[in-house]
């Protein structure tokens, strides 16, 4: 599997107090642990088990993820912004890897 690549969509600008929509997508097979290979052996679970979004270090939204989330997990949620700053996004893999990205927003 190629290294999972996150994509995020955050508006570039917003007015103070505006609630903006954030969309995130990451490439990941989300192997559920329920499937079997051609020899009948269970394919071990390997999923992204959590997702977190913070704004200048303050929690905005997070999610505990089960194997029932589809491959290439998509999360869309809202955030209220009062001032310019940076959103940080983190996805945690079962194998301990952490995939992260950031997006700045200008509030004026």
């Amino acid at each position, binding site marked *: 599997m*190629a290294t999972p*690549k996150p*994509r995020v969509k955050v508006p570039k600008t917003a007015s103070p107090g505006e609630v903006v929509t954030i*969309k995130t997508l990451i*490439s990941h097979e*989300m192997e559920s642990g329920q*499937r079997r290979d*051609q020899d009948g052996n269970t394919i071990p679970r390997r999923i992204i088990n959590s997702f977190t979004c913070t704004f200048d270090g303050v929690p905005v939204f997070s999610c505990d993820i089960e194997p029932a989330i589809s*491959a290439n997990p*998509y999360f869309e949620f809202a955030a209220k912004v009062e001032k310019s700053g940076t959103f940080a996004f983190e996805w945690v893999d079962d194998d301990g890897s952490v995939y992260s990205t950031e997006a700045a927003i200008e509030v004026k």
Partner: protein
Amino acid sequence: MNNAKTGLAATLALAVGLAAVGPAHSDPVDDTLVIDGELEMVTRVKAPEGHPFDEVISGWHYRTDETRALEADTFQNPGMLYTQRGEEVWNTVEGEAGKSCASCHEDASASMKGVGAHYPKWNAAAGKPFNLELQINDCRVSNMQAEPYKFDDPDQKALVTFVKHQSLGMPMQIDLSEGEMQQWWERGKERYYLRMGQLNLACATCHENYNGNYIRADHLSQGNVNGFPTYRLKQANMVSLHNRFRGCIRDTRAEQPKAFSDDLMALEVYVTWRGTGLSIETPAVRQ
């Protein structure tokens, strides 16, 4: 689920859907595909002369509201992850010549714009039509001195998706006047109407005669190829055209021709022609 079981389930579905239960017809959904609210796509167009239908319709119209919405938003479309990966592949140096695709073709958004809309194309040196996969492999061997991709290598799918995506919204149109393209078209047409397998189905059975009906829960489209490689919800992955050809043929319980075999290249020429004028939708989203 293992392959054997999937195959059986598919066979079961075909048998029950087409034979035991009377198929119900429903019209393709009346809707307009606009990508990101900006790019309006041609998803219905007057058929070329000699086509069995009056109007050529994209498979997009046969999908549910939710699936259609996924394709209309390039952010929500999971196929865009593979387009992004394809761009990385485009810029990666491979092979003895120390080149990437970009070394010669530079910016794909300029150099590849429209290219994918005109494949398959006659290749005089090979004496047969080339699709993008064959063209890329030829380029890898002759110019990059790299190994050709094996069929459905994830990088092959990503790169083809990326190249085809540069023609998003442009009309699919192949040149049948070059070389022996007309003969390949004829051969593809024969293949299209050839009943095969234990279920005795031709491509035309589902996609022409029963087009608009349901095969179990699948709304049968015209089988146009303007969205390939396409993101399929079932596989949650990109599916190449020859993978889909082989899947369909397996479901008829016939022996599957190899990917890029003359049989399937001829079929690709013919079905691409059947969708003449439809916008390239790659990466489309289907069930």
